[in-house]
């Protein structure tokens, strides 16, 4: 096997519960739960029962312990009660069973089998429970601490007191599973306090066992393991025909890798109690002795109970801590909420509280993005930051990483922030809050270099071996921030919830405001259009009057001039006075023309306020205005607007006016018709754009067609007939043309506007 391919975590896969052996400080029998036939026996039964496994296997348990004990066993609870501890059973001596010492048995049902583990009961069973001083200590000291480390320290001392181990340590496992000694009580000179142990020191199967089996005692590391035999006389390990599951066994033999590990540390006896909070392995109480040490089973149980107590207390302290941080988070969220509800916008409210927000999760920088605006405070991360991964991993809108480098497009260790918390503040992910944590340059003091060393055994097979040295080995870590804990996440979720709600509110308000503005703008345009409509109509009337009056005035002047000329031609004698009168007539008609001109100039306002406009939008606006005042429910409007129209240089208000007038005429022409369809279309032609307004009305008589664009020739019954003339004026002012076509089923009025390079209107 290639050396480099050896996985140092390979022992994670070792089936340590199928080791097929026990430690020799007790013995083990396994019986069928129905008839108590002995199915398995440890090879050392002779030492405890003076009967060899051969003699026991296949026999009934009653033959060994006597019928009365078996009856008692049948009544005994065979599963752990509450707390999670097996109730010991003490088989009594009788006519066929007369052990030298009192025996303590831990019976446990496992499938169809009952596993019976026997140990010598060396001490009066109640002694340890009755030590008044110990009880006092437990009650007075253990319950008092409100900090984790303090509780751990007290616990270590009490446990060492009860068990007499040389060293009792409390480990806490970090999220990456590596352990740290957070408390220690020892009689030795050296200290492991503050040291870190790599996660690989406790492989995953061992971790599982720590959760399932809270107590583990190894009185003599190097004691020779005793194999467990099946009825066929063969072994029961993982490779055998009858592997026996020793998951819940107290006596289970020690895995070779663990023996080596403890030997490397110089430890000869050990005990461990698992600390479990919220069903997770929180830590361990690890007891080491530098010579062999057998702890009586009732002390073990006491220690086990103590372990459960400590676990419960730990959980309570953790919960309290979490509650405290959560309450702080709620307070901050509430503070921001109050500000925001008081009319301050979210941005200002949040930035005012930025210090507390950063403080609660120990962040040193903040980046707030709301809409188009971004605010930064303190230490911030690299720019740009790839947020995709955080967004994808967000739970309840919150995601964190202590390794910002992963999110960067380029490696840059100079970036001041190393960790980031992402809080999503809008559904679309456009708005968010980032909280940055600085680099966590910290030195980890490892108990030995945290690598396992592989070794080759005689068979040439690769086997793993733990490290031989536990000499202090320091490692400096960089590039990451302090990790975000579950507590941090909870606080972030609380704050994010409040901010998200406030932001939604802000966004709704903004949307409402925008809508109101749009409506106001629409109303303003409508008014402008109506205004223009009125003043245009007036100006058009003025123009029309001027034109209509001017024609006869013009004719009068011509006639008088013609008359005078004819008189001259005929050489008739014309009195001077008559000649002057004719001059006066011409002069007066000219003056009348001038007056009319002045009147027209006074009223008329022919200026175009032109721009490059989207003609389709203008057509729609004119139509909207027309529909607005239309009460005919049957009217169907069809828009055939060409999509890719180039912008055209025109006055949008005036062109909308044309549409409005044409559409009004069309609707009027369709009164009383069964089918009322108004069709508006725009079409780009060569050098110009055509707008057509078409109806399904009465159609267009030829005589009307000639004069319809002249003023005072109303084809509709209402109005002065200014509308179409006005349309023509506007279109012509744009250098466009307007014309009409009679159709079989209605009328179409078309006007064209030229595309122009410049704005010389």
């Amino acid at each position: 096997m290639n050396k480099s391919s050896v996985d140092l975590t390979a022992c994670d896969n070792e089936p340590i519960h199928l080791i097929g052996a026990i430690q020799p400080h007790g013995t083990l029998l396994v019986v069928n739960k129905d008839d108590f036939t002995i199915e398995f026996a440890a090879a050392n039964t002779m030492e405890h029962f003076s009967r060899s496994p051969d003699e026991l296997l296949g026999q009934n348990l009653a033959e060994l312990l006597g019928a009365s004990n078996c009856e008692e066993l049948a009544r005994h609870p065979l599963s752990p009660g509450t707390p999670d501890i097996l109730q010991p059973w003490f088989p009594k001596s009788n006519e066929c069973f007369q052990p030298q010492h009192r025996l303590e048995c831990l019976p446990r049902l496992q499938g169809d089998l009952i596993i019976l583990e026997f140990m010598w009961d060396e001490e009066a069973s109640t002694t340890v429970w009755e030590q008044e001083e110990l009880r006092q200590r437990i009650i007075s000291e253990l319950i008092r601490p409100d900090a984790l480390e303090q509780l751990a320290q007290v616990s270590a001392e009490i446990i060492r007191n009860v068990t007499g181990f040389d060293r009792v340590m409390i480990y806490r496992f970090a999220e990456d599973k590596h352990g740290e000694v957070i408390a220690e009580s020892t009689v030795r000179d050296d200290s492991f306090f503050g040291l870190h142990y790599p996660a690989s020191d406790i492989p995953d199967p061992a971790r599982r066992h720590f959760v399932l089996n809270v107590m583990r005692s190894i009185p003599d590391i190097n004691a020779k393991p005793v194999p467990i035999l099946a009825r066929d006389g063969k072994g029961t390990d993982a490779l055998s025909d009858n592997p026996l599951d020793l998951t819940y066994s107290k006596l289970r033999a020690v895995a070779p890798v663990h023996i080596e590990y403890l030997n490397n540390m110089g430890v000869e006896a050990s005990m461990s109690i698992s600390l479990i909070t919220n069903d997770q392995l929180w830590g361990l109480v690890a007891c080491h002795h530098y010579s062999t040490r057998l702890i009586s089973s009732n002390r073990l149980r006491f220690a086990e109970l103590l372990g459960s107590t400590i676990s419960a207390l730990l959980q309570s302290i953790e919960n309290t801590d979490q509650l405290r941080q959560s309450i702080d988070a709620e307070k901050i969220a509430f503070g921001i909420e109050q500000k925001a509800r008081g009319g301050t916008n979210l941005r200002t409210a949040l930035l005012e509280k930025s210090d507390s927000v950063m403080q609660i999760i120990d962040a040193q920088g903040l980046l707030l993005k709301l809409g188009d605006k971004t605010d930064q405070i303190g230490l911030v991360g690299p720019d740009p930051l790839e947020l995709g991964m955080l967004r994808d991993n967000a739970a309840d809108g919150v995601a964190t990483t202590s390794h910002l480098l992963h999110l960067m497009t380029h490696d840059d260790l100079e970036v001041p922030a190393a960790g980031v918390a992402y809080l999503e503040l809008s559904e679309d992910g456009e708005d968010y809050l980032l909280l940055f944590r600085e680099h966590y340059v910290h030195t980890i003091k490892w108990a030995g270099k945290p690598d396992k060393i592989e070794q080759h055994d005689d068979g040439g097979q690769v086997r793993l071996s733990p490290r031989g040295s536990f000499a202090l080995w320091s490692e400096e870590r960089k590039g990451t921030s302090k990790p975000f804990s579950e507590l941090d996440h909870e606080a972030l979720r609380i704050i994010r919830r409040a901010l998200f709600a406030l932001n939604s509110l802000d966004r709704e308000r903004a949307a409402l405001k925008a809508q109101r503005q749009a409506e106001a703008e629409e109303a303003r345009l409508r008014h402008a259009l109506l205004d223009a409509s009125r003043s245009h109509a007036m100006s058009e009337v003025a123009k029309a009057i001027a034109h209509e009056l001017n024609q006869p005035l013009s004719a009068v002047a011509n006639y008088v001039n013609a008359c005078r000329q004819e008189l001259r031609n005929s050489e008739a004698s014309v009195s001077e006075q008559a000649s002057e009168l004719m001059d006066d007539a011409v002069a007066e008609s000219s003056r009348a023309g001038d007056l009319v001109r002045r009147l027209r100039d006074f009223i008329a306002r022919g200026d175009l306020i032109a721009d490059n406009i989207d003609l389709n939008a203008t057509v729609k606006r004119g139509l909207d205005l027309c529909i607005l005042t239309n009460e005919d429910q049957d009217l169907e409007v069809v828009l055939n607007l060409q999509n890719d129209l180039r912008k055209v240089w025109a006055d949008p208000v005036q062109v909308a006016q044309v549409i409005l007038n044409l559409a009004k005429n069309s609707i009027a022409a369709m009164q009383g018709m069964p089918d009322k369809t108004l069709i508006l279309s725009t079409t780009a032609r060569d050098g110009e754009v055509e707008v057509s307004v078409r109806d399904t009305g009465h159609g267009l008589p030829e005589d009307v067609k000639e004069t319809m664009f002249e003023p005072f020739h109303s084809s509709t019954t209402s109005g002065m007939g200014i509308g179409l003339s006005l349309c023509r004026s506007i279109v012509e002012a744009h250098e466009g043309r307007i014309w009409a076509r009679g159709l079989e089923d209605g009328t179409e009025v078309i006007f064209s506007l030229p595309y122009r390079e410049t704005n010389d209107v």
Partner: protein
Amino acid sequence: MSNVDGSPLTVYVVDDDTAVLKSLCALLLAHGYQAIACQSAEEFLSVHDADAKACMLLDLRMPGMSGLELQAHLNDLGAKIPIIVVTGHGDVPVAVRAMKAGAIDFIEKPTPEDQLLTSLAMANEILNGRITRAVPAELVSVRLGKLTEREREVLDLLVIGKINKEIAEHLGVSQRTVEIHRARVREKMGARGIADLIRMLS
């Protein structure tokens, strides 16, 4: 007025307003022209003799084919008939377009007799090949050189069809001032009216 051969000059009068049409014809006849009345552009096209030496008094505002459309149509046909545009008030921008399209002059209604006769005389000269339509470019630029800056501004606004009131608003001066500037411009440019100015600058 008459042609070189002594026959009277034919003047087509195209106007939809009957009174104007008839009175103009009467005036032209009195002055010795042969007037042919056309009530519409279409009618003109049907009666007009392309070979005859003739000019035209053209109203721009007419139902059916408008004056400008008729002019464009004639240009397309290559017809060389001199066109004198007769317009109502406020149609100056349209008249300017007609001038740019080749009309030799325009007259606002009511039509001053002397101006009408002068324009017709010019048409006659053009038809007889005695003058060209254009004032020589060098002469125009000499005349333009005499204008003050303000006068040049007024001129530029005049030739795009702005009326006095608009020019006054645009330049921020009184209408009276504009009138004075206008008079000076006409004088310096040697123009009888705006039509001349437009012709010189187009």
